[in-house]
């Protein structure tokens, strides 16, 4: 394992040890970090590796959360079934949105997906019959019987295992043909086509994966919070997610992990100052883009020589 992978492994080991010393508040923060890691990995695949600037993740995160809550609530599905199902629902919707978006590029894509994200938020708010409208839905904690763990502890380790699995899967995928296909279409679609890469299929796959991860993250987030409300999935959430991948490092798995941990930590630290939160995240994105385009992972790469599969320097024209 190279240095980046080792650091990721260390992070997960520390995370596994956290419950020994944490109180319910710290556990919440740790669990939130794990959920955000899953989100960040998915977003980074889409924006960093595949180069598709889509703002759909916030909405799909919400879709996953609502789906998981509804499946348990109305259809009485057990959680171990509802969670992957939520991921699949988000994936289906993500692909449905992606199909028209395939024809769009750059800023058109950004615009359309921002519009979709706001539309989704509006739907969460106003489709009272299904989403509970502004009050949202209550989500009971997960019962882990017959395992002898409390819901809080169980949820934490579940998030940990899922995050670990997703990181491992992504790590392997990036070393495979699929990963190379993503980067190929990011660099130049025409060239990719010339190399017999099916651009449409690759793009759709990128959207699908990001959506799947976002949906699963949503399914994990809902019982953590104990409720699903529309405000959690607004524009700020989108900017937060982008801050994670930009500051962490676009196109880098380590970047997703570090960025997620860093941003959640920052958010908790700035808990008292909502005004500063916006300045902080907006400013961070701006400063990183201006002065440190590769993010933290990029820094590690250039200064310490830490290499990662398919982690390229930021492209210049």
């Amino acid at each position: 394992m190279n240095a980046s992978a080792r650091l990721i492994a260390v992070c997960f080991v520390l995370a596994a040890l956290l419950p020994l010393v944490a109180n319910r508040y710290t556990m919440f923060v740790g669990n939130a970090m794990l959920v955000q890691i899953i989100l960040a990995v998915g977003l980074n695949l889409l924006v960093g590796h595949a180069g598709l600037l889509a703002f759909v993740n916030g909405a799909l995160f919400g879709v996953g959360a609502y789906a998981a809550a509804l499946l348990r609530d109305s259809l009485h599905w057990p959680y171990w079934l509802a969670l992957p199902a939520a991921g699949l629902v988000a994936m289906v919707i993500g692909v449905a949105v992606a199909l028209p978006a395939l024809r769009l590029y750059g800023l058109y894509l950004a615009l359309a997906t921002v519009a979709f994200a706001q539309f989704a938020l509006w739907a969460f708010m106003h489709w009272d019959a299904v989403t509970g409208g502004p009050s949202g839905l209550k989500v009971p904690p997960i019962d882990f019987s017959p395992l002898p763990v409390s819901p809080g502890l169980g949820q934490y380790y579940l998030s940990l295992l899922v995050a670990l699995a997703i990181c491992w899967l992504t790590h392997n995928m990036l070393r495979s043909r699929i990963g190379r296909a993503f980067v190929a279409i990011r660099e130049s679609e025409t060239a990719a086509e010339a190399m017999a890469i099916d651009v449409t299929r690759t793009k759709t796959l990128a959207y699908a994966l990001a959506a799947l991860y976002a949906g699963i993250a949503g399914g994990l987030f809902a019982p953590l919070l104990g409720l699903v409300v529309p405000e959690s999935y607004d524009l700020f959430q989108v900017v937060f997610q982008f801050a994670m991948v930009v500051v962490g490092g676009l196109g880098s798995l380590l970047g997703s992990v570090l960025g997620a941990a860093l941003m959640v930590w920052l958010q908790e630290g700035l808990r008292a100052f909502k005004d500063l939160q916006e300045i902080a995240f907006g400013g961070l994105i701006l400063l990183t883009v201006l002065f440190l385009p590769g993010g933290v992972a990029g820094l590690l790469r250039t200064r310490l020589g830490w290499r990662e599969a398919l982690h390229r320097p930021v492209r210049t024209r």
Partner: protein
Amino acid sequence: MVRIALAMLSAVLGASMALAPASAETGVSDHEIVIGAFGVLTGPVYNYGKTAFDGAEVIYNEVNAAGGIDGRKIRFVREDDQCKPDVAVPAVRKLIYDDKVFMINGGACSNAALAAMPEIVRAEIPWVITDATAPELTAPPKPFIFTTFQVGWMETVAQLQRALELGGKKIAIVRQHDAWAASRYQPLLDAMAKGGIKPVADEEVAPDVADTTAVALRVQASGADSVLLLLFPQAATVFMRDTYKIGYKPMVIGGSPLGDVGDMQKAIGIPGATARFEGLAPTKALDDPAVQKYAPLVKKYFPNAELTPWHLVGIATAQFVVAALKQAGPDLTRAKLDTVLATMSLTPDVYAGPIKCTPTDHQCYRTVAWYGMVDGKLKQVGETTLP
């Protein structure tokens, strides 16, 4: 990483503290009582949280200056929930497990308070609600949870009563699309049905709506002579401005968020726009001498602030808490405080009526005062006591 390091450090410290002789109750020691408050400290409705907590802090500081309660000083800790349920959940966890408070005197936004409730119930920690009006918080009554502010349905029933008192015959409702309005809308309809009245118009707007011209036109077209607003100040300001714009001047009755009519008038900016507007508040008028005596105290601890009705809300609830703590005595535990609160009563000098809790009724406050602009000045124009 730092967080984890800190967590380990606090675990070690915690273990060492367990060896020292100390009070068995969390948040209480020989020299202090820790009171926590979660609520909206930033954002458009920060008055319900920050300003009210400032008022409470005035009382707690004064009590400390006089020597504290049974020799213990009060330490007041605040956490911001930005009026959002998903922020309230970690905020209240932080209060309970990180700041380790003895009791909570907070809760300003209904949605956020409801989200925080399961965590508070789980921790079995006393909670005196400052001004969150969701009825589900206190009905059916749960141990440890009490409110010193009128509850949602009380406000809308009072609004209806007031409109009828003032001679309203055709009543319209304008409400916002959120949980706060939803919880007080149904009781309003029920109260209207009981009186055999049907609303002539029933409009819903987004809480951050920027233009309500269409809504105002529809309400005007319905011929309503009074409009009941289930709105927060931002939407209400827009609505009032738009009714003025189309030349429609009905009687308008608002709830507690709109109680500071002077503030509303300033926000609308058009002279005379609030001529037929009334809002309610649990507090006495600002020029009442009993109230004015707190003005210098507020200035003492918050030099940049002017006394507002929201300070008074904090003052009243803090006075109630202090009285209960004093009655609970030096042997202070959460269970003991709960017993005291269940039969506690106090008439704060800044509230229009008494705060009175019983074991079967934790909605301890039921008197609201009406405010309107008379000759350009904010004046109390009426009072209603709910059953």
